[in-house]
């Protein structure tokens, strides 16, 4: 047996378990998910008949019904993305620029901002629920100190979604800051020097050097955060009273609907159809990202 053949055999032997894993734990389940979405799938029932695109038809019919929880879930999920992502990015970029401008205590600030990111989302959600408590929660105590009226936050139908968004933004800030810092430090110093020689102001430098050169980082983070908001679940189920995305579905998300329908109501075909829709939305956003990222900037 030649040396080369022997090495090819070794390569396949080494890859046997990893490839089997990806085949059985990733690929087959992906296809299975499409399969489930085409059936009336109650896991407890004897037969799980194919029903064509009925589940998808139901999903889109529910999206068309302004009061349906699924409609609310899609509405809210897009609200989370549209409110949360820009706030997250602007705050993180601002803090990263500040951090980049100081020389002392930079490490300690970085660590502090990063702490929530390594904390479990479940614990974070419950701590914020305590902060948001209507009577003697921290935030209402602070409002009281300033003589402001007490707020109901998570229990108020108009405040609940922004309150949940705030928690997610707070927790993910540290991650975005670290990525921005890495992006800022990759910008060659000579660009700033050249701009200064030309007499550019701070604002000019920010607008015409920092932002364009940071563009790949901004797009990357925007996509990552968008996908994270599209997949939101843990925060909502733990922040809302019965874990139901309330009050009155004002905070519910697509993934929470998947969980409730699939594992609460045993309506797995419908739940799988929801995940398929989510999958295509995420894929679309990833493809758009790739297109944007191809517009590279020449250094």
């Amino acid at each position, binding site marked *: 047996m030649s040396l080369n053949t022997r*090495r*090819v055999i*070794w390569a396949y032997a*080494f890859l046997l378990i*990893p*490839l089997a894993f*990806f085949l059985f*734990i990733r690929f087959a*389940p*992906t296809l299975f998910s499409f399969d*489930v979405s085409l059936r009336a799938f109650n*896991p407890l029932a004897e037969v799980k008949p194919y029903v064509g695109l009925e589940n998808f038809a139901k999903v889109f019919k529910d999206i068309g019904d302004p009061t349906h929880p699924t409609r609310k879930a899609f509405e809210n999920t897009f609200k989370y993305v549209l409110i949360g992502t820009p706030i997250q990015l602007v705050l993180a970029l601002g803090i990263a*620029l*500040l951090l*980049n*401008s100081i*020389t002392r205590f930079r490490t300690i*600030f*970085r*660590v*502090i901002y*990063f*702490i*929530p990111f*390594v*904390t*479990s*989302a479940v*614990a974070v959600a*419950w*701590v*914020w629920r*305590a*902060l948001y408590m209507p*009577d*003697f929660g921290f935030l209402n*105590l602070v409002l009281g100190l300033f003589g402001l009226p007490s707020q109901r936050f998570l229990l108020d139908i108009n405040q609940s979604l922004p309150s949940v968004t705030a928690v997610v933004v*707070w927790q993910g*800030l*540290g991650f975005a800051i670290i*990525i921005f*810092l*890495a992006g*800022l*430090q990759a910008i060659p*110093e000579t660009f700033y*020097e050249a701009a200064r020689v030309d007499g550019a102001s*701070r604002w000019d430098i920010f607008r015409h050097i*920092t932002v364009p050169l940071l563009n790949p980082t901004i797009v*990357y983070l925007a996509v990552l955060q968008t996908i994270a908001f599209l*997949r939101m*679940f*843990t925060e909502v189920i733990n922040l809302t009273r019965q*874990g139901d995305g309330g009050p009155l579905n004002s905070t519910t998300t697509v993934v929470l609907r998947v*969980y409730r329908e*699939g594992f609460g109501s045993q309506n797995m075909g419908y739940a*799988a159809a929801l*995940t*398929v829709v*989510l999958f295509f939305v995420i894929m679309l956003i990833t493809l758009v990202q790739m297109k944007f990222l191809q517009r590279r900037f020449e250094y």
Partner: protein
Amino acid sequence: MATIATDLAHNAPAPARPRPKMANVMAYILLSIGAIGMLVPFFWMIATSMKTASEILKPQFFPANPTLENYQTVLTRTLFPTWYVNSLLAAAASTISVAFFDSLAGYVFAKFNFPLKRVFFLLILASLMVPTEMLVIPWFIMATGAKLQDTLLGIVFPGLITATGVFMMRQSFYGVPDELLDAARIDGMNEFGIFTRIAWPLVKPAVAAISIFNFLGNWNAFLWPLIVTSKRITMTLPVGLSFFSGEAGSDWHLIMTGATLSTVPLLIVFLFMQKQIIQGVALTGMKS
């Protein structure tokens, strides 16, 4: 590398001009306000965990007489110790598997040539396109069929090998010189020995990085452990905390004790390894 604003300061024609300094003071003030915002929830959590049941119904920030009684209650009257062990086992098991198999696959893709190599690699990367949320239903049906509900294997099986880990390890193994591996071959070492004794030790920093992320990710994982466990005794810490808190009603002192117990140990670990973790995140842009 010098920083932007200090360089802007150098740019000022007269170095003694006060404006850059003011800007610097403002930066510290703003960063400190932000830092307080990051830390206050944790202080409130710990402060509440030391209050008595009657104190949480009063408008006060700090406990009058801090007590550790709540910790005793939570640790002896609930399943928190069991959930700790379950989380530790699940996170450790998946991390060990990831550290070994992600490295092995990454090594093969970096250092071997064989038919279909590109196809296999692209297929593994393509799996990243599918969000976990889409897989939990099939995984649950599979786990039920294989009687893996409420078992350690059931909790960990989806994460035993990761595509990101394979990708990162492949990049690291590119840095290992072929001459070194060939020398070992000439000495008659078998390929598995070359991997474990020559190549693997050279990429330990990368292995450490993916191990830390994987441990954190599994320790904090919620959706899948929530789905695959139904008995309290088999729950992981986040799932247990969620159930416990949901049932504790308005016993916020106990809920915050549970939250403290489930976050503080990990935060201590993080503080010790903050440099590696933050650098790792900056390098890879990883997000669980």
